[in-house]
């Protein structure tokens, strides 16, 4: 049995990873909401964020890379949005397939440029090493990651709930035709939203890089928790997604202590349980995506 301190440490790890999942899932959900498209390439964008940071890190250092890399990923997002444009108004199946193809292509380009071997980047000096919280020594970098994630979540909430643009994004998710009729440039809105969601994936990729190893399949590995988090939280619910992310992170971390072999499966069991009790997820409402 793990000691009390190990337990607390692992619980903290769960919270940190859960916040990371929440960031990935939020970006994914913003895109899905407005586009009506399940963005399969979200995981690949996450991987691109990490790989771009890998290249930028030796040139400009960690902090500038943290800013530049998501912007570049945002541009990849805009390119994707341009190709997805053809599928608007058709069966959602086509949007699904298109991003599925894009995910494969993006992952293969990573293999071509950077190779298939796993890499890693070190945490920046300021946040390297452990810090003492009471009796527990905890990784400074993980705390930094958690802080950044919380900051991003708050910023997104402010953007979506308190600003003019947030109102347009949410209106676009509910009834895009009406938004267009009101004289808002829907194409520009969609490009902006896709870029925003993509750069979320990019940031998550970079801050996850010192934690996990960087490899071409990291995208596929990251997108599954994001899907599950969105299902648990409920499609279209901001706080549902955050809570879902934390739940998946904590449950996985606790399972690692007691039953390491089941740790990859436990989030699906959690999902099935939530769906039995609440078929639309914890805080999900009926949305256009069910049509």
């Amino acid at each position, binding site marked *: 049995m793990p000691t009390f301190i190990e337990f607390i440490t692992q619980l903290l790890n769960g919270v940190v990873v859960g916040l990371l999942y929440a960031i990935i899932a939020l970006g994914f959900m913003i895109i899905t909401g407005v586009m009506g498209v399940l963005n399969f390439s979200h995981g690949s964008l996450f991987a691109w964020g990490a790989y771009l940071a890998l290249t930028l890190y030796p040139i400009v250092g960690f902090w500038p890379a943290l800013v530049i890399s998501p912007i570049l990923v945002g541009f990849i997002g805009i390119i994707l949005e341009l190709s997805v444009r053809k599928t608007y108004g058709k069966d959602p199946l086509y949007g*699904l397939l298109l991003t599925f193809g894009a995910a494969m*292509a993006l992952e293969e380009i990573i293999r071509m440029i950077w190779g298939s071997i796993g890499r890693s980047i070190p945490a920046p000096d300021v946040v390297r090493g452990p810090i003492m919280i009471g009796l527990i020594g905890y990784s400074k970098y993980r705390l930094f990651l958690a802080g950044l994630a919380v900051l991003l979540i708050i910023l997104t909430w402010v953007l979506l709930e308190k600003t003019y643009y947030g109102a347009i994004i949410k209106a676009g998710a509910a009834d895009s035709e009406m938004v267009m009729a009101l004289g808002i440039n829907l194409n520009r809105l969609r490009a902006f939203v896709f870029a925003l969601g993509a750069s979320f994936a990019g940031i998550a990729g970079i801050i996850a890089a010192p934690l996990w190893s960087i490899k071409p399949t990291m995208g596929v590995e990251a997108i599954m928790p994001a899907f599950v988090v969105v299902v648990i939280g409920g499609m279209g619910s901001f706080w549902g997604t955050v809570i879902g992310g934390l739940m998946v992170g904590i449950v996985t971390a606790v399972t690692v202590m007691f039953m390491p072999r089941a740790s990859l499966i436990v989030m699906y069991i959690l999902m099935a349980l939530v769906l039995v009790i609440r078929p639309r997820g914890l805080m999900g409402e009926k949305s256009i995506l069910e049509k």
Partner: protein
Amino acid sequence: MKKNISRAILHPTLWVFVFFAVFPFIFPLVGGYTYLAAEVLIWSIYTMGFNILLGYTGLPSFGHGAFFGIGGFVLGNILLRVIDQIWVGILAGTFAGAFFGAIVGLFVAKKRGIYFALLTIAFGQMFWFVAWSWRSVTGGEDGLPGIDRLPVGIPGLFSVDTSNILSFYYFIYFIFVIAVILIWIVVHSPFGKVIQAIRYNEIRVKCIGYNTALYKWTSFVISASFAGLAGTLYALLRYAVFSDVMHWSQSGNVLLIVVLGGGMVNFFGPIVGTMVFLILRDLFSTVTEHWYLIYGLMIMAIVVFIPEGILGFLEKDRGIAMFPKYVINWVRGRKWKS
């Protein structure tokens, strides 16, 4: 009477059966080989069954690889550990596909569209993780090798040696014919009409008084059992089962095959899609190691340029593509409807 016979002879499924009967002899002439031909048949069973769900009911499942893999693992475990009878393994694998399809179906039958896709991916991945980590049953990463293709037949009457690839091809062909006839019957039955109606307007069908969730669930189970059946045959073909067929990217391939061939608009779309897909994969993977880049870009191009698929594209009145249609019209002496 005469009309009935001529209709039976001109029945499109019959043409398909004739084509696949001679396929292993034509295929080598254009650079193919029997193993690939057998693979085409197996994947055709898989995609035809899948199309009941996708093309006819309109539900995009990204998790059918799970049932395909479960079929294979059940067959493998039965042949290796319980009884060395291929039929038992195939039947058990098919039932296992149907059984797990029924369970997952309970969770997803009320959903549609994107939400349906999302749930099926998640459940499919769950099965994949189980297969991947349950080493004692599935062999984990190494898979389950050593499955033998034993002779099949009725004891005392006759038996067919399936270890030869050509005779195994015809063994699959036999199952393929039954499967395609069954699927034809299903989609042209009253049940088939209801699921097609659900695809176009579920709410209206519900208002007429049909239990749409039950219909969707049934459609899901049928397609899952065909996936299980194909999985057992694929295990026999490869002499082994691996969990990689259960991964969601493999499930996505099935979806792509159906759309590529034109399964959304034509009964035979999945077969055309399977042939084109497997042959292209075979060609490109020998030429370049970055096949996935070409593949990914190809998917994007198909979605953008020919979303109705190959058969859908040919069905439109476009120049040379009209020629076979004229011939068929002339032979039948009546307006051709698919």
